[in-house]
């Protein structure tokens, strides 16, 4: 089936926004303007963009410590995200959460999470809630290959499958859990094979091919909306940066980096769109300029926003 033009361009724009945002965060963090630590999504944009293109604003996602991409794709505003990274009052979490905890429940973002795998049961819970409330909302759980080895994975996926909860598990397999290669951490070549153990569909796709992701996730989402239960989708990808900023990445070879960059989803998609005649270079460049401007604004907003007042530490503990 054909995807309408606007959708394709939107997906492209989202990918670019993520990329520019992350590259900028990289700079600002290095410059010491962003405290704490950050985990960058650059290189994996196709997954967030492709997946979220299937979602409605009222659908849910749970994200990870590497969550900026998911948030932008689900509709997060880059200025308020950047402000949160800066620890400012205007940030999504009023400066209380930072990079690893950004959330905006109104647009279905149940939050990034710094505890690996924590989102698995939470996404299940959101799906259960939708089921109980009789809506057709879907809950998408982004998780990394590392999370697949935590105890929560088994408990969460199994429960969702026996209750046919409307969840889509999207495994972003970027080959490394921090420094640990997936090949060391598990004994199978395809994580999607684990779906069989729970009696749910499992597919492995090229996570750097946004259209492939869009299609596969689309099927899974449709299945979920129909009340046929969860699906497990493994997206093979790679990160341009280290586990977190400051990671020396001694565990990755130069060659790996080159291959990773060869598979960069953005130039790939741009080329494809040009071929399809959907997005001529001029238009594409314009998108890039617009996004650069947006992110500049976001940084400006973050820089100019005030820090929270110290006493605000005591607020929001209980409602």
């Amino acid at each position, binding site marked *: 089936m054909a995807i309408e033009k606007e959708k394709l361009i939107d997906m492209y724009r989202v990918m670019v926004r993520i990329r520019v945002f992350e590259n900028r965060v990289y700079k600002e963090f290095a410059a010491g303007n962003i*405290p*704490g*630590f950050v985990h960058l999504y650059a290189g994996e944009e196709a997954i967030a963009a492709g997946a979220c293109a299937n979602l409605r604003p009222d659908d849910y996602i749970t994200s990870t410590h590497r969550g900026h991409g998911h948030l932008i794709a689900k509709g997060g505003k880059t200025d308020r995200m950047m402000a949160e990274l800066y*620890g*400012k009052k205007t940030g999504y*979490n009023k*400066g*209380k*959460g*930072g990079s*690893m*905890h950004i959330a905006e429940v109104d647009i279905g973002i149940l939050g990034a*999470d*710094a*505890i*690996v*795998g924590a989102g698995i049961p939470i996404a299940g819970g959101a799906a259960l809630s939708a089921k109980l409330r009789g809506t057709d909302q879907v809950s998408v759980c982004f998780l990394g290959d*590392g*999370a697949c*080895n*935590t*105890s929560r994975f088994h408990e969460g996926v199994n429960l969702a499958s026996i209750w046919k909860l409307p969840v889509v598990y999207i495994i972003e397999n970027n080959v490394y*859990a*921090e*420094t*640990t290669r997936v090949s*060391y*951490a*598990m004994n199978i070549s395809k994580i999607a094979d684990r779906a069989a153990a729970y009696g749910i569909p499992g597919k492995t796709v090229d996570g750097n091919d946004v259209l492939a992701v869009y299609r596969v996730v689309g099927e899974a989402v449709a299945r979920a909306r129909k009340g046929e239960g969860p699906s497990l989708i493994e997206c093979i990808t790679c990160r341009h940066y280290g586990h977190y900023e400051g990671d020396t990445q*001694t*565990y990755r070879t130069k060659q790996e980096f080159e291959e990773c960059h060869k598979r960069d989803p953005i130039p790939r998609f741009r080329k494809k769109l040009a071929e399809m005649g959907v997005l001529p270079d001029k238009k594409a460049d314009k998108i890039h300029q617009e996004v650069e401007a947006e992110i500049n604004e976001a940084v400006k907003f973050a820089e100019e926003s005030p*820090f*929270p*007042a*110290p*006493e*605000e*530490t*005591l607020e929001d*503990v209980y409602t």
Partner: protein
Amino acid sequence: MKMKEITFQKAINEAIDEEMARDPTIFVIGEDIGKHWGGSLGELAGLFDKYGAERVRETPISETAILGGAIGAAATGMRPIAYLYFDDFLGVCGDELINQLQMKYMYGGKTKLPLTITAYIGAGLSAAHQHSKCLFGWLMNISGLKVVAPSTPYDAKGLLKSAIREDNPVIFLEHKVLLLSRETSQIPVEEYTIPLGKADIKREGKDVTVVAIALMVHRALAAADKLQQKGISIEVVDPRSLVPLDKQTIIDSVKKTGRLVIMDEEPKTASAAAEIAAMVAEEAFDFLDAPIKRVCAPDTPIPFSPVLEKFWMPGEEDLIKAVTEIM
């Protein structure tokens, strides 16, 4: 005695290295402890190359399996060091912590459990709520678990060696700020250990006893200098291990000063500070010359923004204020 300079990070490294060389039943199990990082703050650097993958066992992200596995191995003749990363992650293996570690007691003393858990603690890096907690009070309340929280490289090495040799479960807490600090202390070149349950008087004084834990020891010492100028003499007691707690040293100090302030980097309610205050009120009431004060964090999760985090963490000024209130 021949001495040498050493950082906190190196102290941890040397302690584990020396013990592993001494006792072949010791092995480390945890995430990212392999050759690349050697622990995410590098404190295990070189051990993988020296002892190999068999004894420095990298795991997937599986806290439950790490702690559970360590318990199984400890109960059956090995002496594992479970590298839990951030103590915030203890929640993931909460059952192992509160229900399984107590094996020795539950089995009527039939097993011993020579197991050391190491974990990072503490705020100060804007790591936000899921990577900044100390959990002292929470851990002290877990029966059957000894809790150690050193403040200097010297203490860290001596205590970690004792913890590893201990036949009971010990959790050894390393404050991130101290682990990343370049500050060094003098330690003997020869091997040494420090027994668990022995407090250390980091500074002698006569007016007020300040019991401070881990990073707070350094803030207390800094505050003590300032107070000295005001003519107030502070005695800084570092318990070093919270379980077992060296009550006598604390009580003796209170008998001398008549005043007690406890500085503890965690929410005040049911904290280590609360326990120490209660203990002194119970056992040395007649020697108190002023109410006991607790300088702790507010009862909130830990915020990310540096501004908020600074407000949340107990600081020199908070201590100085508390002390002057009771003088």
